[in-house]
C-alpha cells in the first residue's frame, strides 16, 4: 500500500513538479519559432504539387470531404501565413490568438494531404497543438522575474512526446535488416559519414543508433542526465543532417527542442548577459506599452508599412497573402489592444523579416520552377512559360531558369525571345552547353552564320563531341568559307 502510494506520488511529481524558467521558455520560443519560420517559408517551393488535376489524398479519409481541397494558391497562403505567425511569436507576440492560429494553419497544411508525410512535421503538429491548448505557463505573479520557475506540465508532455518518438524509432530498428546493417547501408548517402560507418562496421553503427535512441528515451526525462542527452542527442541529429539524408530541417528542429534540456544555470548565465541590453531597452518597452494616441498611431503606421512590404513580395497570390496577414494581425490586436504600439512594431518587423526571408532563400525561385515544370509536363506550355518568366524575374542569375524559359519560348515559336534568354544566360556563363546549343540552332535557322558558328564553337569547348553543335559548325564553316573573298 505504502509502495503504491509512493509510486503514485512519484508519478504525480513527474508531471506536476516539473519546473522550467521563464528565461528558458523565452529562449526556446525564439529558437524554435525561428527554425519554424524558415521551414514554413521553404515549404512554399512545394506548393505547386497541391491540387494538380484536383487529385489529393488526405491523411485521414474523412478530411477529404470535410476540408477544402488544397491547391497551389491556398498552400502559398497557408505557408506564408505560418511564416508570418512564427515570426510574430519569436519577436515576442505571445498572445494565445497567434499560437491557436498557427496550430490550426499548420494542422490543415499537414493533415490535408499525404504529400506532406514528413515525420517531423507530425511532431511539430503535436508540439503546436500542445502550446496552443496549454500556453506555456510563466511564473506566478509576484515572482515574474525571468529566473522564476513555473510548474509546467505541458513542457513535460512535449518532452514525453519526444521520448515516445525515440522509443518507436528504436523499436522500428529491432529488425534483422537493420541490426545486420544492410538497411543502414542502403539508406546512407555517399559521403564522409558513410565512410565512417563503413569503417566502424555497418552492423555496429546500426546497433549504436538504436542504442542511442533507447538511452535518449530515458535521459530526456531525467534532469540529471540532461547534459548527456544534450550532447548525445544534438550530436546524433547533426550527424543525420551532415549525412545528407533528405529530412528537411528535422535535425534543426530537434536541436531547437533540446533547448528545453539546457541546465538552468547555463540559461541563467546567458540571461544575465542579455539583461544589460534589456535594461537599456526598458524605457522603449515602457513607452511602447503605454496606451494612448501615440501608441495607436505607431500601431497604424506599423500595420500599414508591414502590409505594404508583404504586397511587394514577388509571389503569386500576394494580394490574398496580404489580406490574410492583415486579418491575423487584426485578430491578434483585438486581444492585445492595450499594447497596440508594441503589436504594430512587432508586425512591421515580422513583415520585414518575411521579405528578407523571401529575398535570401530559394523558395520563391523553386516555387515558380516546380510550377513551370509541372505545367510543361502536363503540356500547358503557355502557363509553363509564364512560370519560368517568374523564375528569371526572381532569380536572374539562375541559369537553369534561363534554359527552361528559352526552351518554352522555342516550343511556342518565340525564337527571338528564346535568343534573348540565351544571350542573357551566356553573359553569366559563356560556356553553358545548353544555352550555346539553343543559340546556335536559332542563329543557324535564321541564317546568321557567324553568330551560329561562334555559339557552336563556345559550346564545343564544353562538349567537344556534341553532334548537333558539330553539325552546325561544319555547315557554317563550309558555307562561310565558300562565300569568303578569294
Amino acid at each position, binding site marked *: 500500500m505504502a509502495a503504491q502510494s509512493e509510486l503514485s506520488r512519484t508519478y*504525480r511529481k513527474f*508531471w*506536476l513538479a516539473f519546473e522550467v524558467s521563464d528565461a528558458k521558455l523565452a529562449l526556446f520560443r525564439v529558437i524554435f519559432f525561428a527554425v519554424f519560420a524558415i521551414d514554413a517559408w521553404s515549404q512554399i517551393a*512545394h506548393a505547386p*504539387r497541391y491540387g*494538380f*488535376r484536383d*487529385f489529393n*489524398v488526405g*491523411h485521414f479519409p474523412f478530411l477529404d470531404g470535410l476540408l477544402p481541397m488544397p491547391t497551389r494558391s491556398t498552400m502559398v497562403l497557408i505557408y506564408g501565413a505560418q511564416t508570418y505567425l512564427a515570426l510574430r511569436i519569436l519577436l515576442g507576440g505571445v498572445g494565445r490568438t497567434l499560437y491557436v492560429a498557427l496550430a490550426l494553419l499548420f494542422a490543415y497544411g499537414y493533415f490535408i494531404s*499525404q*504529400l506532406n*508525410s514528413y*515525420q517531423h512535421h*507530425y511532431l511539430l503538429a*503535436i508540439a503546436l497543438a*500542445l502550446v496552443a491548448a*496549454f500556453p506555456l505557463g510563466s511564473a506566478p505573479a509576484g515572482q515574474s522575474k525571468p529566473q522564476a520557475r513555473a510548474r509546467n*506540465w505541458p513542457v513535460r*508532455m512535449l518532452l*514525453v*512526446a519526444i521520448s*515516445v*518518438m*525515440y*522509443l*518507436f*524509432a528504436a*523499436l*522500428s*530498428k529491432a*529488425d534483422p*535488416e*537493420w541490426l545486420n546493417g*544492410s*538497411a*543502414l*547501408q*542502403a*539508406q546512407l548517402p555517399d559521403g564522409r559519414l558513410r565512410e565512417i560507418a563503413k569503417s566502424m562496421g555497418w552492423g555496429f553503427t546500426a546497433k549504436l543508433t538504436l542504442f542511442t535512441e533507447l538511452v535518449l528515451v530515458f535521459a530526456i526525462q531525467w534532469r540529471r542526465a540532461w547534459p548527456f542527452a544534450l550532447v548525445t542527442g544534438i550530436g546524433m541529429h547533426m550527424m543525420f543532417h551532415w549525412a545528407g*539524408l533528405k*529530412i528537411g530541417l528535422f535535425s534543426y528542429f530537434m536541436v531547437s527542442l533540446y533547448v528545453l534540456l539546457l541546465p538552468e544555470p547555463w540559461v541563467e548565465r546567458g540571461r544575465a548577459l542579455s539583461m544589460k541590453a534589456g535594461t537599456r531597452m526598458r524605457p522603449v518597452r515602457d513607452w511602447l506599452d503605454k496606451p494612448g494616441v501615440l501608441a495607436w498611431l505607431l500601431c497604424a503606421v506599423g500595420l500599414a508599412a508591414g502590409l505594404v512590404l508583404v504586397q511587394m513580395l514577388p509571389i503569386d497570390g500576394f494580394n490574398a497573402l496580404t489580406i490574410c496577414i492583415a486579418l491575423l494581425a487584426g485578430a491578434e490586436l483585438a486581444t492585445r489592444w492595450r499594447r497596440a504600439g508594441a503589436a504594430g512594431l512587432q508586425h512591421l518587423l515580422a513583415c520585414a523579416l518575411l521579405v528578407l526571408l523571401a529575398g535570401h532563400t530559394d523558395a520563391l525561385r523553386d516555387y515558380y520552377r516546380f510550377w513551370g515544370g*509541372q505545367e510543361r*509536363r502536363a503540356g500547358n506550355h503557355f502557363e509553363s512559360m509564364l512560370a519560368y518568366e517568374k523564375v528569371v524575374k526572381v532569380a536572374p542569375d539562375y541559369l537553369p531558369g534561363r534554359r527552361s524559359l528559352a526552351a518554352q519560348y522555342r516550343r511556342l515559336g518565340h525564337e527571338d525571345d528564346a535568343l534573348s534568354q540565351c544571350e542573357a544566360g551566356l553573359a553569366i556563363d559563356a560556356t553553358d552547353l545548353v544555352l550555346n546549343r539553343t543559340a546556335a540552332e536559332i542563329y543557324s535557322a535564321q541564317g546568321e552564320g557567324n553568330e551560329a558558328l561562334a555559339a557552336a564553337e563556345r559550346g564545343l569547348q564544353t562538349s567537344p563531341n556534341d553532334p548537333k553543335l558539330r553539325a552546325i559548325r561544319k555547315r557554317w564553316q563550309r558555307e562561310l568559307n565558300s562565300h569568303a573573298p578569294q
Partner: protein
Amino acid sequence: MPRRVSIAIHLILLGLLLPPLHYYLFNSDKRDERFAWRMFSPVRVENCGTQFFVGENGAPIKVANYFHNAWLDFTKRGRKQAIAAMAQRLCDDNPGQSVRVRILCEERPRASAGKPRLLYDNQRSTSDEDIEVVAHGAFDFCKIGAL
C-alpha cells in the same frame, strides 16, 4: 493531481501512443509508416513498382500523364492508400473500363549483391477465388475496390 489536469494528461498520452501502436497492431499496409516514428526503417530499403492498366490494352498507362510527379513517389513506396485513391480516380475518369493495378516490391540491390529479392506482389496477397481475374492476372479495381 487536479482532476482536469489528470484527464488532459492521460488523453494526450493516449493520443501520443495510439497512432504508432495502430501501425504495429492493426495496420495491414506495413509500407505506410505515417505516425509510427519509423525513421530509416528497413521498409525504406524496398523499391516498389506500380503499374496501372486501363481498359483491355496491354500496356500500362504513363502515370505522370494523370497525376503530379510527387504522387509517383507513393507508387514507388507501395503506399496502398494513395495507390487505391489513384486507381479510383482512373475508374472515375474512365467509366465502363477496367482498371487493374500491379504492385511489385523488391529489396533494393544495394542492400545485397545479386538479383533483388521479391518482397511483395499484390496479386498473390489474396486467396479469394471469387474475384474475377482479368488480363495480366490483376483484379479490376473498379469492381472490387481493393488492390
